[in-house]
């Protein structure tokens, strides 16, 4: 009863302490403006992708093209084996990375969550060092290319970065918070070994934490254009985001070297480049899955950021 009364009091306080309706309206208007500021730039790209060439010639980039066409999309799907290849590679590498990353990180997190394991400290320090110091891009490149021979392979798109120290710590904190230590003991008495405990108790109980981390990994991998830029030449293995970057760069390169643009060779290269609409269409197609999926997963992101701010 007393609790209910308290709640009622604080609820009515929240009502009293509200901003005035006018202020609320102004604030809402401000936020709507900001939201438009985030959405409209993306919409511009969508509009360019469905503008006709005539419209681009007369009006330039515009939210209100004179006429619409979907030829850019049609041509991508008709002749676009490159786009299809890239899509397959992106989906495959993202899926494999996410699953492997979750398995590897959660098993290490499980080990670090053992309070009485004497090796815990060793593994913790090993993980911590990777947060403090990195060899940097160049040594990593030499190792990956000359020692591990991962240049132009599917593995380079998957393996590096599977273990992220920060994510492991978040997972460990999550496991310690959701699985009581008595449960480990009880399982041990029942004769379950650590594999069983990890697989049948810890993983199912940590679903929410795993979902959060899965989304971080998934979005990161889907948007990763850099690994492809650095390590992939084979067109069959180029991820969508890398493909997008490369097309843009080739055009910039020719345009920035104006003497080259005027040579017959440069002209021919410019002519063979995808049109503005095609590039924008590729952008839309490469971003669509993330944009549509993310509102559904937003809850997990917010949860994850909040877990992350609690240090383990």
């Amino acid at each position, binding site marked *: 009863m007393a609790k209910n009364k308290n709640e009622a009091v604080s609820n009515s*306080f*929240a009502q*009293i*302490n*509200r*901003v005035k309706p006018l202020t*609320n309206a102004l604030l*809402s208007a401000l*936020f709507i403006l*900001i*939201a438009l500021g*985030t*959405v409209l*730039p*993306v919409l511009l790209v969508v509009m360019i992708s469905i503008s006709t060439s005539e419209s*681009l010639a007369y009006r330039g*980039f515009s939210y209100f093209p004179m006429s619409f066409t979907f030829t850019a999309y049609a041509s991508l799907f008709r002749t676009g084996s490159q786009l299809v290849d890239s899509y397959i590679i992106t989906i495959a590498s993202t899926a494999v990375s996410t699953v492997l990353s979750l398995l*590897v990180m959660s*098993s*290490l997190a499980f*080990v670090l969550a053992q309070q009485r394991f*004497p*090796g815990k400290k060793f*593994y913790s320090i*090993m993980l911590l060092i990777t*947060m*403090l*110091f990195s*060899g*940097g891009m*160049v*040594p*990593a490149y*030499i*190792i*990956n290319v*000359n020692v*591990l021979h991962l240049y132009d392979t599917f593995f380079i798109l998957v*393996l590096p970065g599977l*273990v992220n120290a920060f994510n*492991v710590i978040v997972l460990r904190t999550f496991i310690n918070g959701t699985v009581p230590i008595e449960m480990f003991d009880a399982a041990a008495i029942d004769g379950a070994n650590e*594999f069983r405990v990890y697989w049948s108790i810890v993983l199912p109980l940590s679903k929410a934490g795993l979902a959060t981390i899965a989304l971080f990994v998934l979005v990161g991998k889907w*948007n990763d*254009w*850099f690994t492809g830029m*650095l390590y992939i030449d084979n067109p069959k293995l180029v991820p969508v*985001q890398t493909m*997008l970057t490369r097309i*843009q*760069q080739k055009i910039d390169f020719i345009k*920035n070297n104006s003497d080259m643009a005027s040579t017959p060779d440069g002209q021919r290269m410019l002519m063979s480049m995808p049109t503005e609409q095609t590039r924008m269409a590729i952008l839309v197609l*490469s971003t669509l899955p993330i*944009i549509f999926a993310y509102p559904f997963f*937003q809850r997990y*992101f*917010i949860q994850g*950021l*909040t877990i992350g*701010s609690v*240090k383990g």
Partner: protein
Amino acid sequence: MSTTRTYAVRRKRSVPERIALHIRKYWRLHLLALPAVILLLLFNYAPMFGVMLAFQDFTVDGGFFGSKFVGFKNFEFMFETNDAWRITRNTVLYNIAFIGVNVSLSVLLAILFNELYIRKLAKTLQTLIIMPNFLSLAVVAIIAYGFLKGGPDGLINQLMKATGGQQRDWYLYKPIWPFLLVFINAWRGVGYGSIVYVASISGISQEYYEAAVLDGASKVQQARYVTLPHLKKIIVIMLILNIGSLLRGDFGLFYNVTQNNGRLYEVTDVIDTYIFRALKTNPNTGMSAAASFYQSMAGLVLVIAANLLVRKIDEESSLF
């Protein structure tokens, strides 16, 4: 007496015996950690030893151990030209601007957001405002191009034409870029950054506000004297944690969005883009490794310093 004896017996166990016992008891846990350990060794630890490259005249045939040792020669090039100063200045100044602008706007946004009382509208708006964070920089670069393209096409030039302003090829116009990059970075990051503060604000006990209202505090005064002091600790920690990455430039922002335009390097070249060019465009392994080494060492010093600072303020939040 008897306890001493068992103690003595235990101490007599030899090292190999103790190892065998440990393995028998814990091999499963070690095995569970193994995949992660292998990955860390290959992709995190091996490159750490690769920093030797910075002191070698690296050849593929010679490899890590056969290449000639040349001391600090690789560093000379960087410090002889203006490059080291230019890329360090750009990286540090941009990061300071990014941190300052993004943290203050995120906090402001979070405070205002908590006042919206039509929750459904608020949720939808939040979803939209966070959205840019999920766009890759490859995508952001092309969106920016839609606005900045020179000639009559770009949206900014159309606006300039309509208002009688100066039309330009913005990719060649240096003075605008520092502001543009700070703006684009804020566009991407502020909504996402505010999530942490929104969560912290909703964790503040209502009683503080009740007391403030009894004392006749206005909304602005409540924000000034209740909300901000409560956020102070997390703001300080966020600021300090960012110090550790002061020398890491956001590669995509400085490479993609600027279209890697050589004419803008003076104001857009950061350590990461410099290393990338030294590695891919005109390969010079020693030189790029030297720049990479310089970045890692300075970064390490900054992380440790930042962590010491965090420990002073709030031990719980420190990294180690």
